[in-house]
Every structure is written in C-alpha cells, then in structure tokens.
C-alpha cells in the first residue's frame, strides 16, 4: 500500500524534470503547472478508486481544501525563512505563540478567530524580539537565547491553557497535534450557512499572507538577499523582519486547529526547501512551494484515508516525499543531474585520453626507429561502461574509424581534435616547468588532468606566456592548434 502512495509522486516528478531538460525555451511557469496538473490527475483517479460515499465526498474535499490553505500559507512564508537561513525560528515561533493563544482566549472566550490570531502574532514578534535582545544584552549565544525563549514561552502557554482551558474546550493536545478530520464537523453559522470554524482563521490568514507578500515583494526580497544594502537604502530592515515574524506566528496559529503546531513546522520548511532546489528565481520558488504544499495536502489526505491513519501526519510525510524527489531529480541541483554531468565529463575525458594516445602512437611511428622520443607511455584503454560510452561517442562524432586490419585509427577530424589535446598537455607541462619548482617526472600527471580543461583561449594565453616555445620539457614538439568545431564542447561548469 505504501508503495502505491509513493509511486505516483515519483513518476510525475520524473516526467516534469524530463520536460525541463527537453525544453529550455518553455515559459518558467509551465513546469510547476505541468507538475501540478499531472499530480492532480493522479489524485483524481485515486480519489475515485478510494470510493468515498456521496455523503463523504464534500467533506473529504473540504478537508483537502483546508489542508491546502494551511500548507499553502505556511509554505509561502517558509520560502523567506529558508532563504534567510532562519528555518528554526519557524519552529521556535510555532511553539512560543501558545501563551498568546491562551491570553487571547482568556479575553475573548473563543478558542478561534481573529483575536487568537492577533494574540499569536504579538507573541511571535515578542519571541523574535526577546531572542535578539537576550543575545545582544547578555552573554548568551543566538541559538541558546532562541532555545531559552521559545521553551519558556511554550511552557508558560501549556500552563496557562491548563489553568484556563477546561472552562471552554481548549486543550493542549489539539493545539499540538491538531485534528484536520474533525475540522469539517466544527462549524459556526455565517451568512446563513454552516461554515467550518477553521476557515474563520485560515481565510484571513491566506488573504493576509498573499497581501503581505504582494505589497512587500521588493522589501522582502532585498532584506532577505542583502540586508546591509537594504539598510543603507533606508529600508526599515527591522520592521520587515518583525512583520515577517508576526505573519509566521499568525499563519502558524491559524493552522493550529487543523494540522497542529508540530506539523506547521514541516509545512513552513519542507515545501520551501524543496522549491529552492527546483528553481533559481524567487517567484518561481514561491509557486513551486505552493504546488508542493498543495499536493502534500491532497496526497496526504488520500494516503491517510487509504491507510486509515493521521491525515496531518501523512501531509507532512508527503511533503517529505516530494522533497526527496526534488533532491534526486531537480534539474540543476539534483543528485541525478549532478551524476549525469559527472558521467558526461568522465566520458569526455576518457574519449580525449583515447585519441590523445592514438595521436602519440602515430607521432612515435613517424619518428626514426630507435629514437628515444619514440618511447610512449604505456596506457590502457578506458574500460567499463565509461570506456564503452567513450568509444561510442568517438565513433559517432567521426573522430576514429576502424581500418582495414581491424584496429582503431584516427580520422582526419579526430587527428585535429587529438592535436589540440596533446597541445594542451604539452603547453601545461611547459608552463609548469617554467613556473613551478617541480622535478620533470612530476609534470605529466598534472598535465594529464589539465589537458581536458584548457580551451583555445587559455591555450593561446599559455602560448603567449611561453613566448611561442616549440618543444615541451620531454623534448617533444608542441603541435600547433587547429580549429576543430566538434571539440568546441566546452568543459562543463561545476
């Protein structure tokens, strides 16, 4: 069963990352949209397959909707926490708002609504303020002061709730773990309809979050990227900081009843961290984190229904699964693409080594017999999958061919490419000899590594530095460079 919950996510991610490879020209919003729609399609099929009764369907959709609201708000703000390397302050705030909730409840008598949110926002800013002042006034390190502030406030909150809570159904368990399944049952009358109580907090939280990010888009961006410049430009860095902390606290508390404070932390950080791997634009990161958060909610609910377990818990698990997918498959920063880049580099190096050896063999054969220079270093052909791939690539590019007696030899094009490699090698050896205090038997190996990375431009610079030197330290001629279109494959960055 768990396999079936994992595979749709993974398949869809493979598909989207392939799209990214294939179409560099696609508009930037296409990828998250494609990912969103594919997963939505899979979720739709799964939803039918789970066979909710007609009575349960609106309730199920309602719970999913509430899950999306919670995780969406959290993930958007979470992007800024992740970018500012403040992920743990989300953790701290989500715990420290508890006394704010208790106090607001004491005065309003309602365990939900705008009063609770304001109380929490005040405590969120207070947490951040106390942490900073404890750090700057006393001799307490920043992480220790954060630890002190949030645990003390959290403990205070637990006690206040136990003192005041019993009088009106506010219990610590609910605040900690939440209970998304029952959110649809707890309704309040509004505009003649029974509206889920959780929406009273979540809808304002969502509106506030979107408004906050839209209005303060440039301020949040510059304060996150370069706070020193922001301050020098006269932007009130501290104000933006405290507003962000207040928003995090507000959204946290709005999500409490549904997903609970512990899972809020997951929703603040995990979708945002995954989104950060998938793109290198801020607005795309926000969109990706929304999409990932939405699918965490959808698949979290569906898999919880299938496994008959905690929905909020499965939502956090699904965020984790998508994060794992991003780590593996992200287009530029993912493990898979890094592995492919390394493989491609290895193949290039192996092919270049092969043609370099063939060139040296030809060179030796052309020398008079018995010449000392005719001795070439013994070398083995590259073996294994990389060797095979390199031979395929050389043949495909037409750099080598099989001759009449069945052995491999360079084509005209291949000889030109090889000449450039050997030239790079010998230029580097000469450069090392001229500038480094190295014995002559230490020159070959560094040059063997460097020859693959010296493009024509660098070769020309070396040639100029060496004042047109013709002979390498081992007495062999440095061949002249040839313009070879096929070897224009530049060394890969990274």
């Amino acid at each position: 069963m768990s396999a079936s919950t994992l595979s749709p996510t993974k398949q869809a991610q493979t598909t989207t990352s392939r799209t990214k490879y294939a179409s560099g020209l696609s508009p930037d919003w296409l990828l998250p949209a494609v990912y969103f729609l594919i997963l939505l399609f899979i979720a739709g099929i799964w939803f039918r397959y789970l066979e909710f009764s007609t009575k349960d369907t609106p309730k199920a959709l309602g719970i999913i909707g509430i899950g999306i609201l919670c995780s969406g708000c959290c993930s958007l703000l979470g992007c800024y926490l992740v970018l500012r390397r403040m992920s743990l302050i989300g953790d701290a705030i989500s715990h420290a708002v508890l006394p704010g909730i208790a106090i607001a409840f004491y005065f309003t008598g309602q365990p939900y609504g705008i009063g609770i949110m304001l109380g929490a926002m005040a405590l969120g800013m207070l947490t951040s303020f106390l942490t900073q002042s404890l750090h700057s006034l006393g001799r307490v390190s920043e992480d220790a002061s954060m630890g002190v502030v949030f645990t003390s406030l959290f403990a205070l909150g637990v006690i206040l709730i136990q003192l005041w809570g019993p009088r009106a159904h506010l219990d610590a368990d609910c605040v900690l773990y939440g209970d998304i399944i029952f959110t649809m049952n707890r309704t309040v009358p509004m505009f003649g309809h029974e509206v889920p109580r959780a929406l009273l907090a979540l809808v304002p939280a969502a509106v506030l979050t979107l408004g906050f990010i839209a209005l303060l888009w440039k301020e949040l961006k510059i304060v996150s990227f370069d706070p020193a410049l922001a301050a020098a430009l006269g932007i009130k860095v501290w104000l933006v900081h405290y507003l962000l902390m207040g928003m995090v606290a507000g959204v946290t508390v709005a999500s409490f009843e549904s997903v609970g404070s512990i899972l809020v932390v997951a929703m603040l950080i995990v979708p945002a961290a995954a989104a950060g791997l998938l793109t290198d634009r801020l607005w795309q990161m926000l969109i990706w984190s929304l999409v990932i958060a939405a699918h965490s909610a959808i698949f979290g609910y569906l898999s919880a229904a299938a496994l008959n377990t905690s929905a909020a818990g499965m939502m956090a698990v699904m965020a984790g699964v998508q994060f794992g997918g991003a780590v593996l498959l992200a287009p530029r920063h993912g493990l898979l693409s890094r592995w492919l880049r390394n493989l491609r580099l290895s193949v290039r190096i192996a092919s270049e080594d092969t043609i370099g050896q063939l060139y040296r063999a030809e060179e030796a054969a052309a020398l008079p017999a018995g010449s000392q220079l005719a001795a070439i270093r013994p070398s083995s052909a590259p073996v294994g999958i990389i060797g095979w791939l390199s031979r395929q690539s050389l043949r495909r590019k037409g750099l080598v061919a099989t001759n009449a007696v069945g052995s491999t030899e360079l084509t005209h094009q291949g000889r030109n490419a090889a000449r450039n490699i050997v030239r790079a090698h010998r230029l580097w050896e000469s450069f090392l000899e001229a500038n480094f205090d190295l014995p002559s038997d230490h020159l070959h190996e560094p040059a063997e590594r460097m020859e693959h990375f010296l493009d024509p431009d660098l070769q020309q610079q070396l040639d100029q530095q060496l004042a047109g030197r013709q002979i390498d330290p081992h007495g062999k001629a440095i061949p002249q460079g040839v313009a070879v279109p096929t070897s224009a494959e530049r060394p890969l960055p990274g």
Partner: protein
Amino acid sequence: MSPILDIHDVTVAYQRKPVLWDVDLIIEQPQLAAIVGPNGAGKSTLIKAVLGLIPMASGSVQVLGEPVARQRKKIGYVPQRESVDWDFPVSVLDVVLMGTYGRLGWFRRPGHAEREWARQCLNKVGLSQFERRQIGQLSGGQQQLVFLARALAQKAEIYFMDEPMAGVDAATEQIIFELLRELRQQGKTIIAVHHDLRTVPLYFDWVALLNMRLVASGPVETTFTPENLRKTYGGRLAILDAAGEAMKAGSEAP
C-alpha cells in the same frame, strides 16, 4: 558650501570595547578616495558606522551638510562580495534593480523605467548578456561588477565601496578602475576600502590611512608617504588595545 563628507569624532565599539577611536575626517571636494590600513584596522567598520549599519559609540556624520538618514538617496553602497548568499534565487538584472529600490519607497515595485535604467547600468559594466543568469553562475569578478552596476543604479552622489577590487583578476580591476574614474569625472565622490598598497597612487587621488585611529588623510602625493605608512602598518598601538580592554572590563565590573 558644506563638505561632501564630514566624519566628526566617530568612535565605534563592540560590546563597549572601542575598535575605532575618534576618527575625524573631512572630504571637501569630489574625490576618488581610498581607505587603507592593515587587517582589523576598522576600515569596513568605519564605512558601516558612517552608513548607520552599526551604531556609533560617539560622534556624528554629515553627508552634504545633512545627517546620513536624510541623505540616503544620495549615498551608494557596495558591500563586500562575501556578505551575501550568491545561491539566492535572483537573476543578475534583479540584483541591479535593487539599486533603484531606495528611490521607490514602500510598496512601489520597479517598473519599466527602472528596468531600462538597470539594463543601462548593467551594460556599463559589460554584463548585458548575463542579465537573465542566476547570480551564482557568474565568476567572482563578474559578481563584483554586478554589485558595481547596482551601485550605479542608485544614482548616488557619494559612493562607499567595501573592497570593490578584492579577488578580481587584473582585467576586471582595470574595468572597475575605469568606472570609478568616470564617476569621479561626473563629479561624484568614491570612498573605497582598498587592500593593495601598490595600486593606491595609481588609482586614487586621496587617501585615508587607518589603524584603529586615523593616522593621516589627504591627497595621495602628500599623505601616502613611507613615514605615514610606517605609522599605519607598524603594529597596532598597544595602548589603544589595553585602553579598550580597560573600558570593557570597567563596564563589566561588579
């Protein structure tokens, strides 16, 4: 006519221990000025204190006759390249656009005019073809040029630059120098922390020698002398260190 920069008796302290003592510095005319001194001399600290990024223990700063807080739109700043996260998800053009944020004020986003201006500034440093790149994909020298383009986008009168030529290759250093000289010719003042003593007389026409206190300041020809350099680099003043420690200890004593 008020001086361009008037640093009056500025002392900066970390946890009550002064790291910069009573710096008094006046720049009357537009200059291409270098701040020079050994490691830990307080060069960056001075710039940050002038800009109000760290608090001053005492003293005051005026730019063009007014406190810094009222002249922000006339002040450009280039922080050290290492001070930001280059993996941040923004494009090169985004970073240059940030130079225009100060003029826009709260809530307003950069529009078409700002984009055009940012493109021009990017073009000035020769990085137009990279405008859509993520900033981490640039070389160190190119990143430094992006910071300079961003400073140009600020349209300031006086620029503070923290090591604008640190860690760049010779060709980029030349480009940066040409840019600074052009700014200077437009009547702007540049105050740059500089680390390479050999190039001070080449690039700058005014110099401030700093080592926990101002050792000397003035035109390069008269101030950048072996005698002054010896005073600047000939070790820290042991008595200043001891006095600083005494102040710190005094404030902590029971």
